[in-house]
């Protein structure tokens, strides 16, 4: 459990804004931090890592106090035993894949563990390549692996999939989940991608203008109420139109376009671009707005 209570003044595009966060991160959970850009997601993550110092508050794990402004405790990033993955892979260009990992693990690093890591993410054949020779997806895989080389307990990821195409994104998502479970990590993932959140997160914190406005499991947070349905699909409204006596809504989920029949009232609430959750119950599909 990581106990966080911090306050930090941030300069945003719309002016100054106080980031005020009081929350607990469960050990072994994968928590997604979501929200609009500029809401303070990355700042929160950077404060957890120790790259950024809040004006007041504390951050405690079960064993250690990382930050306690009142008592002048501020553990530097080096001592927090975290893994951090940036949006840009930030691999060291002068080192090969293997050397990147070895540097991370340190001189006393467990060589066997590194080889195991490389094998798990299928990078063994690329171990002697320099980062510049790898594709964007491969680089980000190395970055995630490197972050784990020191066997951290906490893994922090700042929009790690943002620069990747959909296929690579899905692939890496899967891999992250495997690693998270295999090593019993506590993972924090900053993302604004709903599918990341639905697929990966045990819990999601939604931050807006420096505050947590919602938290809970993704279903609770993104569907207005708990819906018990057999299938839940999230998607985006592409179009609505009248066809004979009924109204048709076209919804994009993944790469599929669904056509659903709705009533006039419902049609009027749905506009192209809206994120929706389609729940197929026993009898008919229900479309609810995602906030």
């Amino acid at each position, binding site marked *: 459990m990581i106990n966080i209570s911090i306050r930090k003044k941030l300069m945003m595009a719309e002016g100054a804004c106080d980031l005020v966060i009081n929350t607990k991160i469960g050990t072994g959970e994968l928590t997604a931090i979501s929200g609009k850009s500029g809401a303070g997601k990355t700042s929160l993550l950077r404060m957890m890592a120790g790259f950024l110092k809040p004006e007041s508050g504390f951050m405690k794990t079960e064993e250690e106090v990382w930050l306690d402004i009142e008592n002048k405790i501020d553990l530097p990033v080096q001592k927090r035993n975290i893994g951090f993955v940036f949006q840009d892979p930030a691999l*060291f260009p002068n080192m090969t894949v293997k050397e990147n990992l070895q540097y991370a693990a340190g001189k006393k690093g467990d060589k066997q563990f590194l080889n195991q890591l490389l094998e798990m993410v299928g990078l063994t054949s690329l171990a002697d390549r320099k980062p510049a020779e790898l594709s964007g997806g491969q680089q980000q895989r190395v970055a995630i692996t*490197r972050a784990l080389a020191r066997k951290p307990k906490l893994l922090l990821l700042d929009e790690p999939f943002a620069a990747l195409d959909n296929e690579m994104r899905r692939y890496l998502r899967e891999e992250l989940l495997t690693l998270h479970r295999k090593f019993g990590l506590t993972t924090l993932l900053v993302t604004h991608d709903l599918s990341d959140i639905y697929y990966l997160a045990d819990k999601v914190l939604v931050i807006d203008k420096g505050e947590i406005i919602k938290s809970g499991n993704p279903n609770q947070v993104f569907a207005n109420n708990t819906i018990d349905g057999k299938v839940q699909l999230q998607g985006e409204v592409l179009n609505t139109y009248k066809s004979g006596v009924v109204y048709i809504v076209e919804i994009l989920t993944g790469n599929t376009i669904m056509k659903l029949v709705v009533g006039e009232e419902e049609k009027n609430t749905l506009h192209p671009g809206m994120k929706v959750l389609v729940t197929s119950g026993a009898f008919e599909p229900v479309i609810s707005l995602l906030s």
Partner: protein
Amino acid sequence: MAFDYQPLWLSLQLAFITTILLMVIGIPLSSLLAFRTFRFKSVAEAVISLPLVLPPTVLGFYLLIAFSPNNFVGRFLQNHFDIRLVFSFPGLVVGSVIYSLPFMVHPLQAGFQSLPKALREASYSLGKSKIQTLLKVILPNMKPSLLTGIVLTFAHTIGEFGVVLMIGGNIPGKTRVASIAVYDEVESLNYHAAHIYSIVLLLVSFFILLFAYGLNKKFFKAGLNG
């Protein structure tokens, strides 16, 4: 009269020592300028850049005054450390270090600033100290800037004239470097010796620069292809 190689040798020694000292001073100084913001930073940057625009004689004149045993700095050094910087080789080294400071600091500062911040932060997040990060991550990834700084400092020190003349004078074997020797020989109408010094300085300078550009091209390619 046999040709005197001493001035050339002295020039190389001076350039070598100055370059080493400036690397030691320049790396922390330029990283400070690149990564930190502090009060009077612009003042510091302006002072470091002064030798670029100041006539070398002006700098040499002030150093001569400062180092003179009649004045505070000179007296202090003489009384406490028994060091006399005026008309001595150590004095030339101090003068050259100040004079060539921007030639080391500017390329290094640009090099530090060109590296993404995430590289440093990634290294810190892996538990590495600032020194480890500097030695293992930052410096190896800015080799072209390092090389540029070293080469410019070396070549610039070899080509130094005004500062050296002002604080060092023209003492054979001590402060008579090659650039001074050229001037001296021409003054004594000894064109033959002046020719030799000049052609050696010209060739040395040219090949140093050629070497640097060649190596930088290699680094550039290596950066693209691994």
